[in-house]
């Protein structure tokens, strides 16, 4: 009764959310096996071997899997999953893309975005933008599950004892083609895993004004987030969006600036440890979830905030 987890990586390195998914997998069964499908991805399997919770690493090295096209990846996962009762992946754009394809081909009803494992067939998942938690029991023999990464601690890396096994690639349908990926490069911490997140909303009024957010973020070694309104308005790129259909973040400190706090935005950040809201509208719903609210004009407050932070010399990296 072992668990198969599909690793997310960029062929060179493991993506951090796979570590959180490994923890979730280990709560279902201690026999966690991880599939690495990619091209020249031996470094990724080496990383996995050094994670004590991982018992076996299955490597399928082939140009077929370089860009994780779901048409190519799903048939491989299906074949490898024959011996497993549970198939897991992260509930991010990687796992969301291919896992339902695996589930449907196996005639399995997928359990999406779990935040808690109650037992091998019972899980908790948020519905209605996190305004309700549903406890669900899967009656399928085989289970396809995606894991909300921020709800599980990352698995520790040290020295592991996992065995490595090669898996042969299988034929691909040649119905889809990868063209390019435009990744936003940033020196700042990743939004999904940052200790501090500073987010801007429509109140910023322009893309240029995000400099005020960036300055605070740099001072706090924080990631930069945004509301959907700010992304839609073109102030900042889509990969910064926090919310129901964007990223879910759970930092120690979340600072929402000029964000009113629509249900959809709260869905992505309300589990943060400490929430700060800066908004000139004292009635904005963001204040209902904020530990510390400052009713102020952000264009005055942010430069002051930066000046106050500069006075401190204890900023934790």
């Amino acid at each position, binding site marked *: 009764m072992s668990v198969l987890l599909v690793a997310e990586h960029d062929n060179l390195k493991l993506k951090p959310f796979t570590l959180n998914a490994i923890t979730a997998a280990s709560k279902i069964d201690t026999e966690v096996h991880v599939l690495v499908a990619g091209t020249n991805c031996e470094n990724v399997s080496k990383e996995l071997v050094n994670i004590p919770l991982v018992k076996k690493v299955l490597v399928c090295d082939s140009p077929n899997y370089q860009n994780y*096209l*779901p*048409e190519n990846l799903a048939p491989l996962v299906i074949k490898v999953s024959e011996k497993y009762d549970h198939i897991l992946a992260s509930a*991010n*754009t*990687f796992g*969301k*893309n*291919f896992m*339902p*394809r695996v*589930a*449907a*081909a196996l005639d399995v009803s*997928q*359990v*999406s*975005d779990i935040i808690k494992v109650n037992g091998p067939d019972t899980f908790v*998942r948020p*519905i*209605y933008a996190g*305004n*309700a*938690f*549903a*406890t*669900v029991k899967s009656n*399928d023999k085989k289970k396809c599950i995606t894991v909300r990464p921020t709800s599980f601690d990352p698995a520790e890396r040290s020295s592991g004892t996992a065995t490595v096994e090669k898996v042969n690639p299988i034929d691909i349908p040649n*119905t*889809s*083609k*990868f*063209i*390019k*990926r*435009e*990744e*936003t490069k940033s020196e700042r911490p990743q939004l999904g895993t940052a200790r*501090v997140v500073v987010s801007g909303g429509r109140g910023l009024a322009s893309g240029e004004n995000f400099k005020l957010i960036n300055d605070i973020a740099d001072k706090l070694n924080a990631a930069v987030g945004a509301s959907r309104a700010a992304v*839609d308005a073109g102030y900042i*790129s*889509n*990969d910064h969006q926090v919310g129901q*259909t964007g990223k879910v973040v759970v930092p120690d*400190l979340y600072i929402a600036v000029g964000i009113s706090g629509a*249900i959809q935005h709260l869905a992505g950040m309300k589990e943060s440890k*400490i*929430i700060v809201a800066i908004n000139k509208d*004292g009635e904005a719903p963001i204040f209902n979830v*904020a*530990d*510390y*609210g*400052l*009713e102020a004009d952000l264009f005055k407050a942010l430069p*002051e*905030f930066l000046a*106050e*932070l500069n006075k401190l010399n*204890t900023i934790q990296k």
Partner: protein
Amino acid sequence: MKILVAVKRVVDYNVQIRVKEDGSGVHTDNVKMSTNPPDDNAVEESVKLKEAGKVKEVVAISVGEDKAQETIRKALAVGADKGIHVKADNYIEPLGIAKILKKIVDKEKPDMVFLGKQAIDDDCNQTGQMLAAMLNWPQATFASKVNLKDKSIEIIREIDEGLETVEVNLPAIVTCDLRLNQPRFASLPNIMKAKKKPMEQIDAKNIGVDLTNRIQQLKVEEPPKRKAGIKVASVAELVSKLKNEAKVI
């Protein structure tokens, strides 16, 4: 070319839902309902392709109770040509919905199926991908730009790292992101005209697929509430609280 576009009737995105006291679900009686937001984007994109002369027919489909017809009528009012209502009074999981859609695809033979990427009620994000698997078609999920060619479709997808461009052969499944377009409002004359557009009705029971739900909902509860916070009077006070009380900076 022909597009089948799937729409779902859900609790309106502005409604603050309430969990039922007995833990059996959320209150949906007397709650404002509307089209699932990204489904509106799917309809808009289909209609735009028709207006550009690249697509000949747009068929809107919804699975659900009788009132799902309102959601289909809305799609017809902004430019879809025909509606299909698959009547089902109980909740059907994405796997079952995908099975129904497959049967309709087999009959209607569209070149593409457009769907919203995720329904904002059950937040599953599965149906499009599942339908693609059942049809053995390629898929382009989370589309924020669509470029339809003769035998393929080029899609820019929103992914965690930024944007990704893929090209998939037709026939194909496209799931739509909210930034794909700006859905239009239906004009009153078009709402009137939509009432005369054809709407086919089928009972889900007569479709010939097994719709037994595999996932049992044991309990629905409210998430833990945050304790009420405070308002601070100045930036200096905020920084002091963050440093000395919350100890996060």
